[in-house]
Structures are given as structure tokens and as C-alpha cells.
């Protein structure tokens, strides 16, 4: 008995220092029967559970799309709400399989942080929210202002860069969560609140009187947001990357939640390949051949996900802008399935 206890303690100690690197995320997810998805639990439009615990949002639907691709069931996702500060550690340590939490793709995150970004699902930029009463028209007029910001974000760095390069003085007040940052801004602790423009629209609605606040037109940075996975598992990287491309291609080809069944009988070879009616493209990922059809049936194509959560079908009413398809003047472009 004593000996087995000792062995157990030993194993635990060694385990804490790090289990062997896993290269088989897909297999683990399949065995577990559920996808662990690192999500934002606090941002309407991207990721937010309602009072019943049902998660909704743009990034949340990406988690569901991956679950639908693997299990043919978009509910087999366990959402793990993460703060901006803790998100990378959670992915590094294997607590989540994939991080889809409006996270900006940067070079250092792609290298030293041990992540691989699989693509861009939302092209964003950093903006400022201010009180209308301040009568400020541009971010360049914010010299000497106090700015509330969330910790562990690219916004924190861009903010310092922007003020420095424009020779303006800055007082930042940094909070661990966006909740606290917005609350402090709303209480008058800061003149401005800064984060990605997409989030500003949703955070504005959380202030006591949203009509008293305005988002400044300036965008001071590039914020390409996308899903990321751990280094060292190419198969899993490919799956997460191509789920995004599949959804974008589906929109381009006009495959929607409503017409996906009919489209499998289409003559268009692009559509047939995407839905698994032709070729073995799905199997090459280690998924079923028709995973594209399953995914779109459950969550819809890229455009549908966007409109439902961020666009005209939502409270936020964000226009597609940079996130329109390349054929419509935007940046969303996916490599072909073949």
C-alpha cells in the first residue's frame, strides 16, 4: 500500500512537469467524444453563454463547425471561457484543443508562444470608444488622456505604440478582464476604452447609457483574428485551418444551410468535392469524406455565421467590410479544395 502511494506521488510529480508532447489531437478528441474549445465567455457576437448556458457567437460557431466535422454533432463541444491573459497558457498546457477567442495573429505568438495560427476568420483593427461629451473627433486628439485597456492583448501594446509614435502622453489603466475595464471606463476612470473595433460595438452596449458613447473612426492597427493550435500536430493544424477554408469556399459557391442537401446532387465539380460527393478529400484529413456537408448543414457557411452573430441578423449590425469575400471587394479568400 505504502509503495503504491509512493509510486502514485512520483507519477503525479513527474506529470506536473509536463506530459509527453501529444501529436494526436484528433484521436484524443475522438476518444474523449467532445472537443475542448478555448472561447471568449464575455464578448457578445464572438462568444457569450446565455442564462441557460447556451453559447452563441462567431467564434463559438467555429468551435461547433469543428465538432460537426468530427462528430457530425455541433453540440459535442465543451466551451472553456478564457481571459485574454490566460488563453495561451491554456492552449500550451493542453487544457484546450483549439483556441478560437478573437485572438490576433502575430509573429511572436506564432513562434515563441508555441502556437500556430491556422488562418484569419475575422479581419479587425483597434479603435477607441469615448464619451460624446468629450467632443473628440479623432484618436489624435487624445493626448494626455487616461485609457482603460484589457491585459494580455495586442491592444495594450498598440496603444503604447500609437501614443508614442504620435508624441502624445498616455495614462493607461490595465485590467485583467474586459468586464472590469469597461466598468471602470463607464465609471469615469478613463477618457477612452480601447480594444478591437468589432468588440467596441458590443462593449458599447454594456455601458449604462450606450448613446452617450461613440466609437472613433480611427483604426490604429491590423488585427487579423483567427483560430490557433499547439505546435507539433500537423494533422490537427490542417483540420482547423481547412474548416475555415471550407466555410469560406461554401459561401463562395453558394452552398447554404438550407440548400446543402440539394447541392450534393449538383453537377459543379467544385461543389461536389466540397461536399464529399467526389474524391477522397475529407478522408485525407482523417475525417469522414462528407464532413463539409455535415458542417454546413449544422452551422451554415462563412457568410451565414457572420450575419447570424455579427451582421444584420444580430444586435451588432457590423457590415462585412474587409470580411466580405474577395469576389465582393473583401479579403476573405480560401484556397481551392482539390
Amino acid at each position, binding site marked *: 500500500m505504502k509503495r503504491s502511494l509512493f509510486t502514485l506521488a512520483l507519477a503525479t510529480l513527474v506529470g506536473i512537469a509536463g*506530459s509527453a508532447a501529444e501529436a494526436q489531437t484528433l484521436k484524443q478528441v475522438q476518444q474523449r467524444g467532445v472537443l475542448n474549445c478555448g472561447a471568449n465567455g464575455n464578448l457578445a457576437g464572438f462568444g457569450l453563454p446565455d442564462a441557460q448556458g447556451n453559447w452563441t457567437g462567431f467564434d463559438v460557431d467555429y468551435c461547433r463547425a469543428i465538432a460537426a466535422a468530427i462528430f457530425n454533432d455541433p453540440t459535442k463541444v465543451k466551451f472553456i471561457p478564457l481571459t485574454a491573459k490566460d488563453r495561451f497558457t491554456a492552449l500550451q498546457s493542453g487544457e484546450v484543443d483549439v483556441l478560437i477567442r478573437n485572438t490576433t495573429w502575430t509573429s511572436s505568438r506564432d513562434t515563441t508562444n508555441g502556437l500556430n495560427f491556422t488562418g484569419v476568420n475575422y479581419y479587425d483593427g483597434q479603435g477607441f470608444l469615448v464619451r460624446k461629451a468629450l467632443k473628440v473627433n479623432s484618436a489624435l486628439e487624445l493626448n494626455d488622456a487616461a485609457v482603460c485597456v484589457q491585459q494580455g492583448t495586442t491592444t495594450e501594446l498598440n496603444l503604447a505604440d500609437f501614443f508614442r509614435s504620435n508624441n502624445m502622453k498616455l495614462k493607461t489603466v490595465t485590467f485583467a478582464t474586459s468586464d472590469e475595464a469597461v466598468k471602470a471606463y463607464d465609471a469615469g476612470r478613463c477618457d477612452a476604452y480601447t480594444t478591437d473595433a468589432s468588440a467596441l460595438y458590443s462593449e458599447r452596449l454594456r455601458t449604462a447609457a450606450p448613446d452617450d458613447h461613440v466609437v472613433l473612426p480611427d483604426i490604429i492597427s491590423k488585427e487579423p483574428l483567427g483560430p490557433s493550435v499547439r505546435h507539433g500536430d500537423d494533422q490537427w493544424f490542417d483540420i482547423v485551418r481547412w474548416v475555415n477554408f471550407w466555410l469560406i469556399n461554401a459561401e463562395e459557391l453558394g452552398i447554404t444551410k438550407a440548400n446543402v442537401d440539394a447541392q450534393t446532387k449538383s453537377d459543379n465539380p467544385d461543389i461536389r468535392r466540397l461536399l464529399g460527393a467526389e474524391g477522397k478529400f475529407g478522408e485525407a484529413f482523417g475525417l469522414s469524406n462528407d464532413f463539409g456537408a455535415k458542417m454546413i448543414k449544422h452551422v451554415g457557411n462563412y457568410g451565414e455565421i457572420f450575419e447570424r452573430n455579427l451582421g444584420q441578423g444580430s444586435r451588432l449590425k457590423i457590415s462585412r467590410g474587409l470580411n466580405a469575400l474577395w469576389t465582393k471587394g473583401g479579403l476573405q479568400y480560401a484556397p481551392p479544395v482539390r
Partner: protein
Amino acid sequence: MAQAAPPRISPFYDPRWRSIAFQLLLCAVIVWLAYSAVTNAAENLARARIASGFDFWNSTAGFDISQHLIPYSAQSTYGRAFWVGLLNTLLVSFLGIVFATIIGFAIGILQLSKNVLVAKLARGYVEVIRNLPLLLQLLFWYNAVLKALPVLRDSISIPGGMLLNNRGLFLPKPIFGPGFEAVPIAFVLGIAGAFGYRHWARRRQALTGQQAPVFAVGVSLILGLPLLALALTGFPVTFDFPEMGRFNIRGGIEILPEFAALLFGLSIYTAAFIAEAVRAGVQSVSHGQTEAAYSLGLRPLPTLRLIVVPQAMRVIVPPLTNQYLNLTKNSSLAVAIGYPDLVQVFTGTVLNQTGQAVEVVAITMAVYLTISLATSGLMNLYNRRIALVER
């Protein structure tokens, strides 16, 4: 007749050898465990191609910190950010310990007051404060402070050139001119003089029984000498008064509301526990001691100061040390209300930006361990001084 040699015991059964062997074995196992944990972690980090090592220390941080006691800007290094955070932690912990001790002793003694109202109020304070979670209290104080204070434009002017609003308390900043060096020198001389006077007064009391006004003389020496020096050098101090800017107040010394809320919350909370330790300490002194003092003609205050407190301190100091350690560690809750302490700056932003969780967390743990060991070391020294001298 020669004594027969004691029978030789095989080292295997010799308790002395056995215990040494087992201790060596245990040490070896611990060293091996630590070694394998470190190498295993390093290997896994390398395999996941996550940066490791301490190269990040000298890289540019790129983020701003709202309160820094040493010069810091976004171009400073991560190492500099670490020191900024550490100093902020030490500042709030040190001041918190001072205030918590003062409030705690006052409340602890008031709990034993003969005045029922005062005693019950003090008791109520202890029961309410120590039974609410600290995080909740910090959030309450922070939001209460922010909500209650006016916005920038309606700043409250406090006589003496101070301004108070929801951005903080702004004090005039003294600027020292030439000749000011005399003042700190006078201050040090004043302290030395006060100690010297106390030494002399004690010796005289021991020899002749005559008492001297040590407190009054000490205070007038410590405060009076610097004031005298100021007057003699012609007041070489000017003040930079805070002024209203377009958005913020320029100039002066700024006390952030985050700092005020954290300091207040920590002091109030820890004081409730210290008050209990003080009450227990005072009650542990037998009532006969007080009666004996009264019968010798001592009045209540000298009785408390000379008879009860010195004996009570022996009981109070060990739990007091605990509370000091708790306060220091609890200061890491600063992260919730935006005060840039070590955890917020270093384990928050720096960890997130560098992605080097193992190194950053290890450094932070080492720092808290060092602070805590230093605090308890000092308190143990003090404890030894006041401990009952046994002959």
C-alpha cells in the same frame, strides 16, 4: 578481567546507519525528482518549440504601467517592468502592514472596552469584515471610491492645493532647492537624539526612579530639528501644484484610486484579524496582573502600556506575523482592480507576451517566498527580543 567486546551489529540492523541510509535515499529521490521535472519540462517546451530561458529579460516590454516608482516607459525592458511591479507590491504591502497594525491594535483594545457601545461596535467591525471575502471587499471599495468621487471637471479642491476626483488624489509636489540637504541630516540627528535621550532617561529611572517625558522630547527632537533646519536655510522648497489639463491633471503627485482602494481594503481586512490576535493576547494576561498594578497605584493607561501589553505581545506576535504574510500575499488580488503589482504586471502582461509561463511563474514564486521569509525572519527576531527571558 577484560570486558567482553559488545557483539558486532551488522550495519544493516544498526539504527544509526539505517537512519542515515534512509535520509540519503530520500535526498537522492528528491534531487532526482527535481532534476527529472526540470529536464522533462525543458524537453517538452523544446519539442513544442516554446521559447525558454531568460533572454526575454532584456527585451523591450512595449506596454505602459500606470504607477511606477522608478523611471519606466513602454521602451523599457521586461526586467525593468518586473522591478516596477515588485516595488509597487512592496509599497502597498509595507503601507498596508503599517495601517493594519495601527487599526488592528486600536480595534483589538476597543473590543475589551468597558463601554458596551464601543466594545460592541468594535466586535461588529471584526465580525463583518473578517467574514466577507477579500476580493469582494476590494471590488466594493474600488467601485465605491470611483462612483462616489466627482468627475475631473468637478474636482474637489482641498485646502493646500490638493485636488480630488475619480482619477485619484493629486497632491502638490515639493521641489527641493539648494540647501535642502540640511533637513534630512537634521531628521537623522533628531532620531539619534531621541534614542540617546531615551537611553539616558531609562538609566536615570533605573538609578533614581525619576521619570522623564521621553515621548514629548523625542517627538519634538524628531520634528523640531528638521523644521529648525528649514527655517535656518530659508525654506528652500517650492511646490508644483496640480493643474487641470484638457483630459487629466498635470503636475503634482498622483495617488491612484486603484492604489487607494487596494491599500484601504487590505488594511481594513487584515486589521480585523489583527484585532482578534490582540484581543486574545490581552485576555491571556492574567487579571491578577492588572489588579496588582492598580494596587501599586498605577492608572489604567500606564497599566496597559507597562504591564499588560508587554506580556500580551508574546502571545500576539506569532499570529501577527501570519497576518503580515497574508497581507503581502493578498496584495496580489490587485489584479482585479487594475493596480499594477507584481502579479498584474509580471505574471499577467509579461507572461502573456513572452509566453514563458514556467520561467515567469517560477520567478514570481521565488519573489513571494523571499518577501515572506524576510518578513517572518524579522518578526522572529522581534519575537525573540520580547520573549520571556528564562533563567
